[in-house]
């Protein structure tokens, strides 16, 4: 199993190729091929996970050369360790669920085959990213994931908002990749390799100066900022909700956005070597988390709420990993690493479930606005139940999976009081906005009877995945129960294995916070004991800011995009007029040009393509008029030049007198030419 693990990404790739080139015209076949591929991948992944557990987490590396140069060796390879194995299962499992779910969800769309081919391509990319054994390869798949995300967000490209969102996602990610690439190059330069293990070995040897390492770590983290939608590059994620909902579930909740966190976990040795960089990471994480949570409080679009929730949760994980790095650099032991990766896994399941549930709702009522919904619990039982399970899980209610992982994250903030307070605050808000969503959607009276009337439970292809995911949303956390020997923390860890001691106090605190959040939501949106409107009016300025997402999009638009475009247009003008103009000598001659225009307009307009430059044309025009047509003038020039040459060679000073004399006399006699009034006819042509 392990030895063939490199095959896992190729199953979906094969499916992609087959669908694109052969079965594109047959939706059914395409669908089955895609699902079969991912299911095989799932089985294989489970096999890998079991094998990995069996060998107690001993990693395995397989390498093939890609491009080999004296100073740089690029390889493709596979690195399987517990983290990889877990991620493989998560990815393939969520993928399987989403693909099966999509059969129902995408039914009737004209481009179903293409949809599945994209999903397969995405799965390939994500799996490749997971198994990569070096930074070069992770970058490759990193980009491919971005591409598929672009394709899938813009799947309904006729919608301008969808195609805009796809573009925004790609470009924003590219900004992050900019830093990522520089980080990789720094490592490549100082470590001479991009292989994870070799790089880590170099770092542990202390071969890389610490300042450089900090810079490299921050640069690498830029990539994660882009991919995992961290502040300030989080703006693409909410927009990405324009894509089909299964896509949101798979890519923008469970897997791709987790890639950033995964990368940070994977490269923890780099980050943990620099306390400063780790602190930056932690701060970015908490800012993101807090900001997204606050925004999520007031959004009305069901998917957007979930999107900001995702953002917030990812920030949570990032913060945990960052704090781990800080502690590690100070030689403390912390649960941050384990917490972050653990939450990564559990979040994948319940967030996928939430999105799929939301998809199911949208499928039923054809709207995203939660104020149009209400009371759906009667019509959509499975959906309602699974959605509540997921919500409880994300809120961190015992004993659902979210409880265990979230608990560890808060535990990771021990020693960082500010972080801890904020983390608890976020936990409170998370519980509140999730249940705001739940209550508004599923309970109470239907607010839009028309929509309610048409609503119905989704087909089985959609509900079975929900059930499967709900199962895992409940149970997945149990592998990480702190009292459980050989659990997740003994399987996935960084550095040396540490025993850690669970804190009941923290568990209690977090549970209280979560419950109070739920209760508040219950009061406001179910019992209506507190008026939501009144609350809003009370905090109107704050609400407006939050509702408009802190105006970050607008700020980007006016501070970055518009100026860039204006600059680009300016440069184009510069290119067309100044640089080119220099060549054409347009500059000051343009002015002269207009005076002389009527005189030789004919020549120029007449297609005298003036690549040489107008200067030469003007000179040509001047030189031409020396040719007066009077033969004696020609003779005069002959003798005057001959004399001039001789005088110049003998006495250069004399030559200037001579030249001056000739010119002065010439001008004087030109002016005194009274008796002959034939003006030189400038327009007369030379043709006889």
């Amino acid at each position, binding site marked *: 199993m392990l030895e063939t693990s490199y095959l896992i990404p190729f199953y979906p790739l094969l499916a992609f190729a087959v669908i694109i080139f052969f079965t594109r015209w047959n939706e059914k076949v395409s669908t089955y091929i895609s699902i079969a591929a991912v299911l095989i991948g799932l089985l294989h992944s489970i096999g890998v996970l079991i094998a990995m557990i069996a060998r107690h987490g001993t990693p395995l590396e397989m390498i093939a050369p890609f491009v080999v140069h004296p100073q740089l060796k690029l390889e493709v390879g596979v690195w399987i360790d517990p983290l990889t194995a877990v991620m493989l299962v998560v990815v393939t499992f969520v993928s399987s669920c989403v693909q099966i779910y999509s059969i129902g969800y995408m039914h009737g769309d004209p481009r179903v085959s293409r949809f599945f081919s994209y999903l397969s391509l995405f799965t390939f990319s994500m799996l490749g990213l997971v198994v990569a054994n070096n930074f070069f390869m992770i970058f490759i798949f990193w980009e491919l994931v971005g591409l598929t995300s672009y394709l899938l967000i813009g799947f309904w490209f006729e919608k301008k908002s969808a195609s805009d969102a796809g573009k925004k996602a790609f470009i924003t990610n590219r900004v992050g990749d900019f830093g990522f690439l520089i980080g990789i190059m720094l490592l490549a330069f100082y470590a001479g390799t991009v292989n994870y293990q070799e790089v880590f070995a170099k770092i542990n040897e202390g071969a890389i100066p610490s300042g450089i390492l900090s810079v490299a770590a921050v640069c690498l983290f830029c990539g994660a900022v882009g991919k995992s939608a961290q502040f300030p590059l989080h703006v693409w994620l909410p927009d990405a909700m324009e894509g089909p909902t299964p896509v949101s579930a798979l890519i923008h909740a469970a897997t791709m956005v987790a890639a950033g966190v995964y990368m940070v976990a994977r490269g923890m040795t780099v980050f943990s070597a620099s306390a400063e960089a780790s602190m930056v990471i932690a701060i970015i994480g908490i800012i993101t988390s807090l900001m997204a949570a606050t925004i999520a409080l007031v959004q009305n679009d069901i998917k957007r709420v979930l999107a900001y929730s995702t953002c917030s949760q990812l920030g949570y994980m990032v913060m945990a990993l960052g704090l781990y790095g800080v502690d590690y650099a100070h030689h403390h032991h912390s649960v941050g690493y384990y917490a972050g990766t653990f939450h990564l896994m559990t979040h994948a399941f319940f967030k996928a479930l939430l999105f799929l549930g939301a998809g199911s709702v949208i499928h039923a009522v054809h709207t995203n606005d939660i104020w149009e919904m209400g009371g759906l619990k009667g019509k959509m039982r499975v959906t309602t139940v699974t959605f509540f399970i997921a919500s409880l899980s994300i809120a961190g209610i015992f004993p659902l999976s979210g409880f265990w992982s979230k608990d560890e994250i808060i535990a990771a903030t021990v020693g960082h009081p500010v972080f801890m307070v904020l983390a608890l605050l976020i936990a409170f808000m998370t519980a509140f906005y999730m249940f705001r969503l739940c209550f508004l959607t599923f309970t109470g009276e239907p607010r839009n009877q028309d929509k309610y009337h048409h609503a119905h439970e989704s087909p089985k292809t959609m509900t079975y995945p929900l059930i499967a995911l709900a199962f895992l949303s409940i149970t997945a956390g149990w592998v990480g129960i702190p009292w459980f020997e050989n659990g997740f923390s003994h399987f996935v860890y960084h550095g040396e294995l540490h025993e850690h001691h669970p804190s009941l106090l923290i568990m209690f605190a977090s549970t209280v916070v979560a419950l109070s959040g739920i209760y508040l939501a219950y009061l406001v949106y179910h019992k209506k004991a507190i008026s939501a409107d009144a609350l809003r009016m009370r905090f109107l300025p704050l609400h407006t800011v939050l509702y408009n997402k802190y105006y970050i999009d607008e700020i980007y638009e006016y501070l970055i995009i518009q100026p860039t475009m204006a600059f680009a247009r300016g440069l184009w003008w510069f290119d067309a007029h100044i640089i080119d103009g220099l060549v054409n000598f347009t500059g000051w001659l343009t002015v002269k040009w207009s005076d002389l225009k009527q005189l030789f307009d004919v020549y120029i307009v007449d297609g005298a393509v003036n690549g040489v430059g107008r200067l030469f044309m003007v000179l040509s025009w001047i030189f031409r008029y020396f*040719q*007066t*047509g*009077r033969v*004696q003038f020609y*003779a005069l020039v002959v*003798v005057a030049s001959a004399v001039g040459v001789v005088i110049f060679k003998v006495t250069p000073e004399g030559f200037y007198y001579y030249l001056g004399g000739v010119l002065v006399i010439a001008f004087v006699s030109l002016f005194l030419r009274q008796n002959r009034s034939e003006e030189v006819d400038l327009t007369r042509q*030379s043709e*006889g």
Partner: protein
Amino acid sequence: MMMAYLALAAILFSIGMFGVLTRRNAVGILMSLELMFNAVNINLVTFNKFVAPEVLTGQIFAVFVVVVAAAEAVVGLAIVLLLYRNWQGIDIDKINIMKW
């Protein structure tokens, strides 16, 4: 003494040159040209006498110059006739169809 002859030639040449440059009558120009050729001949003969008297190269050269000048005068006068036929005048200033 040689300088005196050379100076005479130079003056004559300059005068002829002036004539060519300024006369408006085509025949006048031809006459001025003859002055220039004569100046050259004075030069040649002078040099022959004072610099290289052993061989009469200068004088022979001068003879050839006389003949060539005659030939040029002949052709020149023929062209002047043509000029007269085409323009009904031989004012050089007016003969400038071709220019620029």
